[in-house]
C-alpha cells in the first residue's frame, strides 16, 4: 500500500477506454443495396438507342408523325405557304392567288401535286382573276410532306376535296423527274389535265 502513495502513480489518469465505434449498421446495409441498384441500372439501360441521343429516345420517336395528318399539313402550310397565300388561304388580291375555293386546289389532284412539285412561272387564272407571278418549286419536300400540304389545303376554308396520298405524289414525282423548270402558266398546266 505504501508503494501506491508514490506520487507519479497518483498523477496518472485513468487508462483510456476503448471508444472506437463499429460502423453504423445502416451503412452496412446501405452500401450493398446501392451496389445492387447501380448494377441493375447499368444492366437494364437501353443500349439500342441512337448513341447521338442521350436519353433513350430514338430518332423516330422525336420525329413528328408524318403521312397526311391534318395537324402536320397545317404546320407545313404555316411555315412554307402562308407567307404568300396567307393563313386563311385568301391570297393577296392581284399578287398571290387564293387557295380557298380555288378550282386549281379542289380540282385534279395530279395538277395540284405538279404545281407543288415544280412551281409556276407565268400567267394563271384563278376564280376569274389573272395572276402573273412566280411560285417556287417544293420538290425538296418529301412525298409525305407534299401529300400532307395538298390534303390540308383541299380540306380547309370551305374546300371539300378528297385527300392526296403520298403514293400519288411519288408517282407524279416519278413521271416528271427530268423536269427542272417551273410550269409555264396555265397553258402548260391545262395540258396535264
Amino acid at each position: 500500500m505504501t508503494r501506491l502513495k508514490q506520487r507519479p502513480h497518483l498523477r496518472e489518469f485513468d487508462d483510456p477506454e476503448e471508444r472506437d465505434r463499429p460502423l453504423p449498421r445502416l451503412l452496412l446495409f446501405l452500401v450493398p443495396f446501392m451496389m445492387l441498384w447501380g448494377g441493375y441500372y447499368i444492366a437494364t439501360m437501353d443500349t439500342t438507342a441512337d448513341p447521338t441521343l442521350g436519353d433513350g429516345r430514338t430518332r423516330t420517336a422525336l420525329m413528328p408523325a408524318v403521312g397526311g395528318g391534318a395537324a402536320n399539313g397545317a404546320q407545313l402550310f404555316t411555315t412554307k405557304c402562308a407567307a404568300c397565300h396567307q393563313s386563311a388561304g385568301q391570297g393577296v388580291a392581284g399578287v398571290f392567288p387564293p387557295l380557298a375555293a380555288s378550282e386549281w386546289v379542289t380540282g385534279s389532284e395530279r395538277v395540284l401535286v405538279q404545281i407543288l412539285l415544280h412551281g409556276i412561272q407565268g400567267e394563271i387564272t384563278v376564280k376569274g382573276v389573272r395572276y402573273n407571278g412566280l411560285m417556287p418549286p417544293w420538290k425538296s419536300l418529301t412525298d409525305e410532306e407534299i401529300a400532307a400540304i395538298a390534303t390540308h389545303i383541299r380540306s380547309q376554308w370551305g374546300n371539300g376535296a378528297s385527300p392526296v396520298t403520298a403514293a400519288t405524289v411519288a408517282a407524279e414525282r416519278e413521271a416528271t423527274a427530268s423536269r427542272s423548270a417551273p410550269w409555264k402558266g396555265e397553258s402548260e398546266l391545262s395540258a396535264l389535265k
Partner: protein
Amino acid sequence: MSYAAGLLLATFLLSFAGLLLFLWSMSRGFFGSSEAAGRVIFEAKEIGLVEDPAAPDVRNTGEFQAVMNRTGSTGEFSLLSPEEAERRLELDESSRLPVLLCIASAAIWLVIASVFGLVASIKLHVPDWLVSEAWLTFGRIRPAHLNAVGYGWCSFAGLGVCLWLLPRLLRTPLEGARTAAVGAVLWFVGVTGGVGAILTGHSAGLEWLEFPWQFDVPLFLGGTLMGVSLLRTLAKRQVDHLYVSVWYIAAGLVWLPILLVVANIPGLHFGVQQAAMNWWYGHNVLGLWFTPLGLAAIYYFIPKTLGKPIHSYNLSLIGFWTLAFFYSQVGGHHLIGGPVPGWLITLSIVQSVMMIIPVVAVGINQHRTAWGHLGALRYSPTLRFVVLGGMMYTLASVQGSLESLRSVNTVTHFTHFTVAHAHLGLYGFFSMVMFGAIYFVLPRVLNWEWPYARLIRWHFWLVIGGFTVYFIGLSIGGWLQGLAMLDANRPFMDSVNITKPYLLVRSFGGAAMTLGHLVFAVHVAMMLLRRGREREGAALLRRPTPTPRGATAVAGARA
C-alpha cells in the same frame, strides 16, 4: 447487353468490390485507432470544454457550458495552461495576414454578388427594369452573380477558413504566410477582372467558366500560391494523426487546380466534348472544391464548439473516400437528353445516386455528434450556423441524387427548381457553414471580440428567414413550371406565367438575404477597423440570464 454496357457494369462492380474491401479493413481496425485521431483537435484536458469566441459574454458562456454539462459531456476538463494558450495564439497569428485578406475579400464579394443576384431576380418579374445599359441586362448580371458568388465569396471564405484551420489542425505555424497573401491578392485580381469581363460582354459563354481564360491565369496562380503555402505547412506538421478536415482541405487544394487547368485550356474543347467537359467542371467545382472546404469546417467546428470529439472518425474517412470515389463523374446528368453517348449519362446518374453513401456517412456522423446538445444552438452563433449548414448539406445532396434520375430530371431540369436546389447547396450548406466559421475565426485572428451581438442575431434571422422563403417558393414554382412545359396541350407561355408569383416571393427572400449580408459585411468591417466596444467576453446571441449555472470559471481564460 452491349459491349459498352458490359464493360461499364464490370468496372462498376470491380470498383465497388474495392469499396467493400476498404470498409472491411476499416472495420477490422487496419486504419489504426479512430479514437486518437478524433482527439487531435483538442489539447490534453480540453474535451468537455465548450468554445465559441463569438458566443456570449462571461455569464452566458456559463449557460452554454452548463447545457453541455447537463447533456452528457464527460470526463474532467480544465482550462488551457498558459503555455498551451500561448501556442494557440502563435498559430493563429501565423496565418493572420492571408486569413484577414481572404475574409475581407469574401465579405466584399458577398455584398456585390448579392446585389447582382437580387437585380437578376427582380428582372424576372419586372422585365423592363434597368434595361437601358447593356451591362445591367439579365444575360450579363446573372453570370456575374454566379461567378462573384463562386469565385468571390465562396472561394475566398473557404480559403480564409482553411488558411486558419490548417495551422491549428497540424499544430504548425503557417509556412509562407506572405506568399499566401500574394496569392489572395492575385485571386482577387482574377475575380475582379473576370466579373468585369462578363459585365462588359466578354464572357466565355460556358456556365461556371464564363471568365475569359486570361483571368483564369491569375486565379490559377493565386490558388497555387495559397495551396503551396498550405501544403508546405502540411509537410512540417507536428501531429501524428491527420484530422479528417485536413484530408478534405488537402484534397480540395489539389482538385481545384486540376479542374481549372483542364477546363480552361483555350482551343482544346469543341462541340459535344466541350459540353461534357463543361458539366464535368461545373459539377466538380461544387463537389470537389466547395464541398470539401465546407465539410472540413463542419468536422472542425461542431466538435470544437461542443468540446466533444467527432462521433466516429472512421465514418468520416469513409465519407471522404467515397466522395472522392464517386463525385468526379456526377456532372453528366445535366446532359440527359443531350447529344452525348447514353452510357455516359447512365454512368453519371449511377454515380450521382451513389453519392448517397458519403452523404449518409457524413450525416450520421454530424447528427450523432450534435444530437442531444441542440440546446447549445441557442448560445453559440458558430454552432447555430454550422449545424444548420450541415443539415442542409444532407438535404441538398439527397435532393441532388434524386434530381439526377431521368424520371425526376424530365420535370425539374431547365426550371427554377434547379436554381432552388443550387442555392440549397451553395447557400444553405456552404455559405451557412462559412458564416459560422468566420464568426469563430475572426475573433481569434484579430484578438478582438465581435462588437455587436445584435448584428449577429439580425444576420442569422434575416438569412435564415429569407432563404426559407426563397427556397420553398422557388421549388414549388419550378416544379409547376416543369409540369407545364411537359404538357403538350398547354402553350409555352403558361409555363412562364405560372412562375410569376413564385419569382416575386423569391425576390422578397433574396432581398432579406441581401440585407443580412449587408449586416454581416458591416459587422466584419467594424471588426477589421476595431470599431465598436471592446469586450471582455464575447458577443451574445441571447441576453444574459441573471443566474448563471455551471462552470463559471470557464470565461476567464479565453485568450
